[in-house]
């Protein structure tokens, strides 16, 4: 490459190796490979290796003893068999699906409303709302989690105060963190509140790309607001909706810190989803083998959403280059 630095016509340089005979010489250029080497090394040691390690452990007998002494034995599919036979695992899996469905439906629904709202607002109000969304978006997860603990406190929490003032007297001193259903509700509120900004701003960005003429002609043809959304907006934004939905599914499904900090999966396992379950089984019960098996199954379930997303990325990649 350095030899070519003084050639005055770069385009020619690109064409020459494409001579019909023989292989292009630039293939032997080591530079690209040297440039990506650090990234590849990082990926191999810090991502691929842990993933393979998790897979291996899930086929081993790996508990407290093996953690200290080493020398874990292969036990084939025993861990998976134990897991799939346990009622608890199926309960947790079902709960995780319910948790994901409730959150994602709320997130996408509310975000669509907010995005449509943003598109219709005047400039000043729109900027104000967008700034508020950005502020919420930027609030760190653990800070938000701590805030929600304070909002939902039983005695001095502002939520109970507001609910009592609104006439729901039963909420006076209500302890949200003691009841499974209430805890679930608080966690859903937290996750939806944190996720709406990204989804709403992304959908709004998509909305702004729809030409106004389309709306005008739809209106001239007598379309009502709902019809216009169903026949014009939604079809055009379908890829955008698919993107937002699949990203939210992934995020909500594997959401861990919020649940762990607020409830540790409790009370009575009412908020134990798969990632929390995997962690609890491994670190609390020291069943590293079983925990890894849960993690691998989580990855397998997620893979459906992940692969779909990957394909979308690659299609976009193809369109761009």
């Amino acid at each position, binding site marked *: *490459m*350095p030899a070519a*630095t003084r050639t005055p016509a*770069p385009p020619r340089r690109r064409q020459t190796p494409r001579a019909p005979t023989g292989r292009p010489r*630039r293939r032997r250029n080591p*530079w*690209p490979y040297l*440039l*990506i080497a650090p*990234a*590849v090394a*990082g990926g191999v040691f*810090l*991502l691929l290796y*842990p*993933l393979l*390690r*998790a897979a291996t*452990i899930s086929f081993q007998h790996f508990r407290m003893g093996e953690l200290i002494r*080493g020398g874990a034995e292969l036990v084939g599919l025993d861990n998976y068999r134990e897991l799939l036979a346990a009622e608890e695992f199926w309960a947790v899996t079902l709960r995780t699906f319910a948790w994901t469905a409730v959150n994602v439906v709320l997130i996408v629904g509310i975000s669509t409303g907010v995005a449509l*709202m943003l598109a*219709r*607002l005047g400039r000043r109000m729109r900027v*104000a*709302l967008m*700034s508020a969304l*950005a*502020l919420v978006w*930027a*609030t*760190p*997860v*653990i*800070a938000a*989690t*701590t*805030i*929600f603990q*304070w909002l939902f406190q039983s005695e*001095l929490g502002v939520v109970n105060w507001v609910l009592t003032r609104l006439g729901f007297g039963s909420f006076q001193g209500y302890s949200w963190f003691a009841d499974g259903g209430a805890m679930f509700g608080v966690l859903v509120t937290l996750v939806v*509140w944190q996720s709406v900004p*990204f989804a709403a701003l992304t959908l709004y*960005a998509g909305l702004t790309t729809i030409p106004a003429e389309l709306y005008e002609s739809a209106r001239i043809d007598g379309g009502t607001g709902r019809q216009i959304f169903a026949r014009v907006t939604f079809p055009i934004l379908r890829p955008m909706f698919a*993107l937002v939905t699949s*990203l939210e599914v992934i995020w909500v499904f*594997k959401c*861990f*810190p919020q649940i762990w*900090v607020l409830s540790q999966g409790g009370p009575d396992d009412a908020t134990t989803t798969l*990632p929390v379950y*995997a*962690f609890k089984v*491994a670190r609390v019960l020291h069943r*590293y083998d079983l925990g*890894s098996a849960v*993690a691998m199954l*989580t990855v397998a379930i997620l893979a459906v959403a992940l692969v779909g997303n*990957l394909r979308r990325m690659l299609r*976009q*990649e193809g369109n761009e280059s």
Partner: protein
Amino acid sequence: MRTRTRPGRRPAVRAGRIALNTAAAAVLAVMIFPVYWMFATAFKPAAEIQSETPSLWPAHPTLEHFAAAVGADGFWTFWRNSLAVTAAAVLLALAVSLLSAFAVARMRWRGRGPFIVMVFAAQMAPWEALLVPMFIIARDTELLDSLAMLTGVYFMITLPFTIVTLRGFLAAVPAEVEEAALVDGCTRLAAFRRVVFPLLAPGLMATSLFGFITAWNEFAFVNVLIIKDQGKRTLPVWLSSFRDVFGTDWGATMAAATLFALPVLVVFLFLQRRVGAGMIAGAVKG
């Protein structure tokens, strides 16, 4: 107000405007309230926090809670740990991904396609599933309770995203600019340093911001990898265990949350426009 009656088109349109703006104001209030409440509580004296009817804003603002949070055991240590781990991880990710992004954006080579696929796949890596193996690997290599291991993990979490966004910013710098510098006798490295790098600076800023936010906020891995040596914890873990630190002192807890969130909020709002666009572009792309 004519919000209810809809005799003709015109008043209906106006009523619609008012309803829309009211709804928007309500959404804004609901969204912003938790963050506002954090600030408000942090500045309220204890008596106001504990009053039966909460006041909407601090009547007698005080800094005592901030003093309590900053004065809490180890606050500065955790602050320093957080900053060190975040900065190291982000700088490392920037350096490594700049190399990769350059190779992807400016060179044609065999394996480029697969490499991009791998980066995209790594971007969606299920990190939550790797908590246990990371713990075991750290234990086997005696890297438990070490900030180095944490830095490595954060580096890897932010790396794929950094490569993707940097590649985008790099592709936006026209190759002709670089070629002109080459024609003028620069070496490839000098052309990069003198011409491309200055044009890339805003992109580097925005990209490092995402890495900063990710690493600064990360909780699960610190929680798993830092076990015995409390002096190695970072702010998120410290904040999550506020009950051990402050008991039920919500003023101090909210002050601590404010101090933790503030760097991110400031940086984010400061660069909001670029970040917003970049995040959305990044999200749409991957």
